[in-house]
């Protein structure tokens, strides 16, 4: 299922671009994050608590930043595993300046496997949207409070 959406952040594309690749920022803003460390340049190792409907699980895995275009776009490759299944995705983020703010377009197609797919597949769209909202709201808070 293709998921997409956008969020507006009151910060410049430059700020957002940096923030999206900052381990500190991500650790603060990604909902349910338990652990986040840099494995290598552009590769984060992370553990997240996620719940999709009745399925809850601690997902661990990697997020890699692929072909980043300075202040414009990023592609993220996510590969996570949990006792309740597997989740992987290629996500695309495009930053578009909009007045003083940035419109962040995000899209991707998650691949789910195992119990999370059988129990939660239909809920994943809503969950992704909610998680994105939380993430970008926090990101904006972080960026604007610093400013």
């Amino acid at each position, binding site marked *: 299922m293709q998921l997409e959406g956008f969020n507006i952040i009151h910060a410049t594309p430059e700020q957002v671009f940096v923030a999206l690749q900052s381990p500190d920022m991500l650790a603060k803003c990604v909902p349910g994050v338990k652990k986040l460390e840099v494995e290598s340049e552009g590769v984060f190792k992370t553990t997240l608590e996620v719940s999709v409907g009745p399925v809850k699980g601690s997902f661990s895995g990697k997020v890699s930043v692929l072909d980043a275009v300075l202040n414009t776009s990023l592609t993220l490759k996510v590969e996570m595993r949990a*006792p309740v299944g597997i989740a992987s995705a290629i996500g695309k983020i495009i930053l578009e300046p909009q007045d003083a703010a940035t419109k962040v377009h995000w899209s991707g197609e998650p691949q789910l*496997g195992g119990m999370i797919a*059988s129990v939660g597949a*239909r809920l994943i769209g809503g969950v992704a949207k909610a998680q994105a909202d939380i993430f970008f709201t926090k990101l904006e808070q972080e960026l604007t409070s610093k400013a």
Partner: protein
Amino acid sequence: MAEKMFGKALKRVEDPRFITGTGNYTDDIAVHGMVHAAMVRSPYPHAKIKSIDSSAALALPGVIAILTGKDLVGAGINPIPTGWLLPDLKISAHHAIQPEEVNHVGDIVAAIIAETRAIAEDAVALVDVDYDVLESVSLGSTALAAGAVQVHPEAPGNLAFDWTIGDAAATDAEFAKADKIVKLELRNHRLVPNAIEPRASLAEYKRAGDEYTLHTTSQNPHIHRVMIGAFVMGIPEHKLRIVSPDVGGGFGSKIFQYPEEVIVLFAAKKVNRPVKWTARRSESFVSDAHGRDHETVAEAAVMNDGTLLALRVNTIANLGAYLTTFAPAVPTYLYGTLLNGTYKWKAIHAHVRGVYTNTVGVDAYRGAGRPEATYVVERIVSTVARELGMDPVDIRRKNFIQPSEFPYQTPVALQYDSGNYEPAMDMALEKLGYKALRAKQAEMRKQGKYIGIGVCTYLEACGLAPSALVGSLGAQAGQWESALVRVAATGVVEVLTGSHSHGQGHETAFAQVVADELQVPVEHVVLVHGDTARLPHGWGSYGSRSAPVGLSAITMACRKITDKAKKIAAHLLEASVEDMEHVDGKYQVKGVPERSKSFFEVALMAHLAHNYPADLEPGLEATHFYDPKNFVYPFGTHLAVVEVDADTGRTKLIRYVCVDDCGPIVNPLIVEGQVHGGVAQGMGQALLENTVYDASGQLVSGSYLEYTMPRADDMVQLEIGHTVTPSPHNPLGLKGIGEAGTIASTAAVANAVIDALEPFGVRHMDMPFTSEKVWQVIHASQLAQAADD
């Protein structure tokens, strides 16, 4: 004279324990020292297992052992066999824990044994399995297509078997003569049986004696013993006891021998503690055998006057990743042989290809092959009627096999021994008020209201038999049943049966028959089932066989008891056996009630043997192994009425009339209960339930959030009737009723929905008729109409 129990609507004797919460289901049992198992299951539909790192899981406090496929194979545990072999069947090994490759989501790759269930489940998360993910396939026709992903190397092109029945040339000849050929493409979608009690198993091992006991949710503990003991684990029969206590519904899904049973038995010995496993519902969805999943092209050759000539059927049966216990039989001998229905087809030819896919195994689910066959026949007959402008009732009446024509040899092997289809249909039509409802339907259509009436005049064949025939068709099991009737010195009658009740009320119905046969109070009859240590032989309950086969065995054993009791009484009365009669619960000299002995007196003397015939063994018990001569052939007419809301597509069952002929009825309460439940399941398939694998092979309908089970307000009160045509070949004339409701109702409801949608030009659409799908076709038709205007 004791009141006759046969035919009485006796309240069930098993109910007091269930209504007070004191039933004894497998998961209710806790034994000293018990530990728990949890399974590590594949999240991928198809993958090679590269490595398994269980060190983190093993380090978790409370984890006792972790088992992998290699451990089991190394210990000499064999794969789980299938119980039905077809010629040239391609079999791929199904290991309790797959050592190298997983073939469906839910396939087991490791098992954790831990002090508590919670710890075991925590540890599952810590097992690190490295997979090499492979391409997968989940739809039967896709798996058969050229260049499809190969599921097992043993089955090139994913073809497990290629099977035909009937005379192809004769069928072609009839098609050549036909006025008209009517073709339908039908998808009989996949279902999950969903007994409300999840499967569970508890294994105990005794080092003294090297003996195993397995409590498990089984419809047929003796089949489990044969499969596990003789084939999988190599445990001698007398050292493996299988107990199937109260079982919370089966519907076929608890016939099969499952991996978890082997795992807990193996683990119990290895860790020397009792080991229990209980499925979470989300595990049930990916590990209980599924049902149906056919893609069929059917063609009927007919004359313009409505005469049915011939039927040609081509079916792709999706078998899933492994052949489970009866998987090969279901889409072949339980399907192809039923395609004749209740009609006089001159020729039939069916071609079935069984196909491997990366999905859960598909096996018998209530009806097993017969609902699929009935769906094909009844849908096509109704379609023929519509295309010829006939009433669906008239075409059936015209083509029914007549009572004088039995025994009737069908073109697809079965020989029907009895039947009388019209009276059942007429009774149903009468109950429904068919003519008036048709008029009302026409009236309502004018007002933009759409109801549909679906007709299904089914026939089924159950109580598979005889063993020799079924064996020649590939069954690896006998199809007889055994019974042991044992009379205690007090006159209490203990009846041990190889049949198994998981809701069918055997404790009551069987006792009623025994009470009549032995002329004893029904309260004195106690039924024992579900324990291989109590009754050594049996084959269990599936395929509606308990009444025609199991109860026949009991009846015959009772008759042996009566014969012996007469000899004992004759001796006590100094009369000759020929002069004895069995009346009013007494054994008396014919016509001389004063010279009699009671059942109790005879039973006591059989035990004391003080004053006893010299040539007679003491004791009053008898065993009978009953192997029927033929199947039994229940039939009937089901009429469904649905209402479709044209604005929303919402399709609702509003009336349901059924008249079934299952022969003489032992207990009407129980028989009607079987019909109610069966109809709900068949209606569930037609309107609600669906099992969906997405393009990547993931099961996306794996919970009750997605898999729509019928709820109380989806059903209506049923209007039920019966006709009685006894089976000519078993002692009580009994036929089965456990599956009839499911066999008939899917087609009845489907025909009703298509009938309702006739004004929208709908000739056929596939189940389930969800609001969304129905709305789509209505909407499309309205758009087309608007474009025309």
